[in-house]
């Protein structure tokens, strides 16, 4: 796991390998791009490669040497990985995750000492957009001027949420979703059923699509039942309570996709590139009676609701509110 990259990341890999061979590797990297394109795996592989004693031909870690063993066991002394954590004494079931200043300070004092294994020192900050402001500020000094043979890798799918001061200190490397054919081939090799539908729903991000298993599709059916209630002459409101159980990264994001599909259908008989291609007919029925201005107003409403996600709102009321608006499109 620590020495593979995805086939669509080859260009970025070669670029960094080239820099490393020329001894011009920057001290800070910002890996950014849509969610689900394998940036974190790439960061780990890059770290593994820098720490490995005998990299193989394409520059990736061998996975055999003592350094690679330590990386795999998560005990390598010169590799730090920071991930967002809940507040220290939080009892909430869904705590807000952040990268806090204590973690950054600890990283700072670690990077202030020489490397234990006498090689590279690597720090990976995953989901770097979750850095709290103070932590980001505390990081700046280290980010600007780490010691020799140090690499700090920030990984994020929302680079604009990072403070500009942090962004400007890193060399940015963009990761795109692979082409459809490549993504489908990879999903096929992972044994994903209904790969095309899943990839559609994931907006082309293969790693997101790979997570779309049966449970996900059941959830989606629940949402589609609710949204298409009108076409069966029912009210969607009765589904509100069931919808509260939808996962955090689903639910509202999918609703946004459905609304987007309505807009697409409104703007041309064909409606190219529907996300929910399999519900085309029902969507067409809905689109016919809906009003474009109201669809856009609804789109805004969903966006607003997504932004409020961190706030503790009664989920059932939230869904009822959305469904009433949906029925009145």
């Amino acid at each position: 796991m620590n020495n593979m990259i995805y086939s669509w990341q080859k260009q970025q890999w070669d670029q960094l390998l080239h820099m490393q061979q020329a001894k011009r590797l920057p001290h800070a990297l910002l890996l950014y791009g849509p969610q689900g394109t394998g940036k974190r795996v790439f960061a780990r592989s890059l770290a593994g490669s820098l720490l490995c004693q005998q990299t193989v031909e394409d520059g990736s870690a061998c996975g055999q040497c003592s350094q690679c063993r330590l990386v795999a066991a998560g005990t390598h002394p010169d590799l730090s990985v920071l991930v967002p954590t809940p507040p220290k004494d939080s009892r909430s079931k869904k705590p807000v995750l952040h990268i806090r200043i204590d973690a950054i300070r600890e990283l700072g004092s670690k990077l202030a000492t020489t490397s234990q294994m006498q090689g590279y020192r690597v720090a990976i900050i995953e989901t770097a957009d979750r850095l709290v402001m103070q932590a980001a500020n505390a990081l700046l000094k280290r980010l600007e001027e780490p010691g020799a043979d140090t690499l700090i890798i920030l990984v994020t799918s929302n680079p604009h949420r990072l403070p500009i001061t942090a962004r400007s200190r890193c060399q940015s490397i963009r990761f795109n979703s692979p082409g459809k054919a490549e993504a489908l081939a990879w999903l096929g090799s992972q044994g994903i059923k209904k790969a095309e539908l899943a990839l559609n729903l994931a907006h082309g991000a293969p790693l997101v699509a790979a997570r779309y298993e049966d449970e996900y599709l059941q959830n989606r059916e629940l949402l589609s039942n609710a949204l298409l209630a009108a076409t069966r002459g029912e009210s969607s409101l009765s589904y509100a309570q069931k919808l509260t159980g939808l996962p955090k990264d689903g639910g509202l994001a999918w609703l946004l996709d459905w609304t987007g599909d309505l807009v697409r259908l409104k703007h041309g008989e064909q409606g190219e590139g529907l996300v929910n291609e399999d519900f085309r007919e029902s969507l067409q029925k809905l689109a016919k009676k809906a009003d474009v201005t109201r669809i856009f107003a609804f789109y805004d409403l969903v966006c607003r609701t997504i932004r409020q996600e961190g706030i503790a709102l009664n989920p059932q009321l939230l869904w009822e509110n959305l469904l009433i608006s949906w029925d009145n499109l």
Partner: protein
Amino acid sequence: MKFKIQRDELLNALQQIIGAVEKRQTMPALSNVLIKATSDSLSLTSTDLEIELVTHLKMMIDEPGEITVPARKLLDICKALPADSDVNISIKGEKALVQSGRSRFSLVTLPAADFPSLDEINVGSEFELPQKTLKDIIDKTSFAMAQQDVRYYLNGLMLEISAKILRAVATDGHRLAYCEKETDCELSDIKQVIVPRKGVLELVRLLDNTEEKIKVILGSNHLRVELDNIRFTSKLIDGRFPDYNRVIPDDGQCIMTADREILRQALVRASILSNEKYRGIRLILEDNLVKLQAQNPDQEEADVEIEVNYKGESLEIGFNVNYMIEALNVTDSSMVQAAFRDSNSSCLLTFPELKDCKYVVMPMRL
């Protein structure tokens, strides 16, 4: 792996290395101790990723091997076993079996390859010196190290080795401690390292006041000290230590000599009524007399006078009393000499009987 060891021997070895076992336990492997058994020796290793301690025992091993087991639990078991008993340690499947008399314990293990132990280090320079020399030089300077300063290079002790001289310097920006010792090391160039605070405190715990020679290795990334049966390795601070020579004043015109113990006691007395946060104290020098004045926010005042050896203009200067007391605490010399220039310049404390150490204390505006 299988071997038999005396309980006291094992307990002793574990107690020597337990200091490096991580208390916060961010990584499970770090709360473990690495046990390595080769055909004729046993070694125990502990690390917190900043310092590493390895202890060696010469003994017969039934079956060589290596494994890591929870350090504190093993230590607690050893402590609880009766003295003079024998302990058998072996591996069975995923567990380590500890057996002594009719007590049996089975401990969880982690593979030895997952343990971040450090074998070879890049050797920069290497020299030998008596244990007590190193202990002395650290004792005389380490109190002045900064604690969690943002200037990370101050959070440690600077060790510098040049031809025949080993220097240690510590400073927190308000005071500085300097000490030098002669060694028989033949080095042509100067080599400087900064040892992190934690490493210094752990190292001094291992050292004794004996003439026994120890080996010190300064690597590019590590300091390693090899004692009789224990090996200490610490990472270094990756930074540049400030130029201490420019901090030590050499132009103090007003020179006062006093009995160290009398001056120290006077400072301690006066400090009782100094401000608890800033610890400010006023020192007034007159002919053969020092007046110490302290005042706290409750308007309580202390006034202490002692006789000293001083000829010259009278001078008034403020100090953090703790810095003075700490500098006077570390030696047992009978006399102390303080050199002042004016009330805005730092003061240099030296000891006529000890040529090797100097302390600089910055003044304080009161």
